[in-house]
């Protein structure tokens, strides 16, 4: 009995390994997808490196550290490779800190949105009825309304926002899109013979949804997560820029807002350019990974 169980576990593991290998083989064919992964890896390293500058000298602490000899805005120098901001804070260490927050905000917000979207899509598509109508109506309203005004009004009512409020609000606005796609997929899966046979064998709805249907929609969820990260990063930057960000978190959007509100937009290109470029390239990398994933999820797009 034990040996039987052992072989079963082993084959399952082998199957997974094979699946990973196959998926990677497919993904590798997409040059843009690989390029996206490379860019992402670079930003991941930059984010990890954000812990180094504050250890070298206290003036490199992104939020509080100021250079006692400068105490103001200054162009790039040996001490400060990207210069300093209006308080004499090092812009390069802010940029590294920004990479960390862009990844944290982008990935958590997109993951939360996609998890909620997937569960809603599964439930709504499989059960139908009133639950389906209510969930889809809510999704419709959220899809119609632009996100920035909603977040602004909620933020105004709350008084002040932290970075996690922003993450939650972005996730709250991000689930309807994926939920619609997942729901459509579930509606088509529901009619397939393997679901019918599971129902006939007496599997509960919960088991059918999470054991039989969910694995088939997960690649689609992942696809929407990659695009979701792009949206989340851009949304966070936009919110920070208009002033609805967390002032105690150094994000790229916040850096641009400080540049704008301190009146340095036109005289400090070393301050204005790097954060915007970083947002663009990181957002692009997730978008490219999404395009690569699309070719796995949608076989029609593969080159024959």
């Amino acid at each position, binding site marked *: 009995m034990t040996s039987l169980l052992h072989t079963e576990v082993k084959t399952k593991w082998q199957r997974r390994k094979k699946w990973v290998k196959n998926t990677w083989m497919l993904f590798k064919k997409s040059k843009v997808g690989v390029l996206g992964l490379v860019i992402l890896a670079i930003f991941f390293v930059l984010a990890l490196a954000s812990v180094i500058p504050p250890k070298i000298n206290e003036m490199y602490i992104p939020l509080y550290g100021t250079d006692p000899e400068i105490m103001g805005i200054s162009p790039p120098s040996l001490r400060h490779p990207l210069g300093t901001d209006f308080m004499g804070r090092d812009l390069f260490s802010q940029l590294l800190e920004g990479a960390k927050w862009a990844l944290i905000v982008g990935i958590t917000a997109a993951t939360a949105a996609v998890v909620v979207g997937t569960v809603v899509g599964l439930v709504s598509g499989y059960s139908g009825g009133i639950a389906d109508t209510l969930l889809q109506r809510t999704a419709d309203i959220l899809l119609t309304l*632009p996100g920035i*005004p909603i977040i602004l009004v909620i933020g105004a009512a709350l008084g002040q926002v932290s970075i996690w409020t922003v993450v939650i609000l972005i996730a709250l606005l991000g689930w309807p899109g994926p939920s619609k796609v997942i729901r459509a997929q579930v509606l088509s899966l529901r009619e397939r013979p393997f679901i019918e046979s599971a129902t006939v064998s007496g599997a509960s709805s919960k088991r059918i949804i999470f054991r039989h249907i969910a694995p088939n929609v997960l690649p689609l969820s992942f696809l929407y997560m990659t695009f979701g990260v792009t949206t989340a990063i851009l949304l966070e930057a936009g919110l920070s820029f208009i002033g609805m960000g967390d002032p105690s978190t150094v994000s790229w959007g916040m850096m641009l807002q400080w540049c704008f509100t301190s009146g340095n937009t036109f005289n400090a290109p070393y301050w204005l350019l790097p*954060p*915007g470029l970083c*947002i663009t390239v990181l957002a692009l990398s997730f978008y490219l990974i999404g395009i690569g994933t699309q070719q796995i999820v949608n076989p029609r797009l593969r080159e024959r």
Partner: protein
Amino acid sequence: MSLAKFVAKRVLEIVVTLFIIATLVFLLFRLMPGDASSVVAAKMTPELKEILRARFGLDKPLWQQYLIYVKNLLHGEFGTSFYWEGDVFDILKARMLPTVLLFTTGTLLAYALGVNLGRIIAWKRGGKLEYGSTLTGLFLRTMPMFWVGLLAVWVFSYRLDLFPVGGMKTPEIWGATVEAGLLTKILDVAYHLFLPLTVYTLAIFAGNMLLMKNSMLETLKEDYITTARAKGLPEKKIRDHHAARNAMLPVVTALSLGMAFSFNGSILTEKVFSWPGLGRTLVEASLSHDYPLAQGAFILLAGVVLVAVLFSDILYAYLDPRIKY
């Protein structure tokens, strides 16, 4: 279902949606801690506070306050702005047109540009043009629009001094010193509109272009294109009359789905270029805790979005006779 019936149904849906939104906004502000912070500000004079308390029935239970709120909304009464100390609706009335102007011209331009470029790129597929335009499109899609706006102001207004740094009107022309003619006024607004319009259009047209290109590439594989070719029709006719017309449908669908994205963009554009619209008003009112103004701007903005979505739905139903809901 006839088109009129379809429109009537959608209008009803919009009214219900606006009602739900207004209710949520009411709950959001009234349930916050503090003394009905959406109506009375701390810095107001006691007399004004009393008047507002009576008008909004703040001493009454919540459900009665809600009824008063709905009644006030229907009469266009959004309260008194904390900051401007004037009627919210009067303030917002003047901000509505600039938003509609920027948003409508920008969106129409972006779609015209996206569809036409996408059509041409797909037709000349496989070359440098497709590669270059796809790359440009991807960059435009992922660049933060407000940052592009700042760069544009820096280069074209500050360095080259070609355009104004922001705003919609030159005060001298609009009666500050001398009242100018209508044509001068229109040209003045166009001069101020150029840069924000360009940045906004660039930011949203890329998505349409890529979508049109992909849709066109799919359409070109269809049998009826081969048939058209076999008949010996001119290339241009196949491209524009046979392929592009059918390829446009997904782009028109995306028009109503992309409305939310476009509006986010127009708010950021208004902020960067100090454009005196609803979006900038909402941003400033929210940040300065001017609740009545923020609330009013939000509800009006939602109304504008819903009307825009309605128009795109009508366009879709008109273009695709199969849609009969």
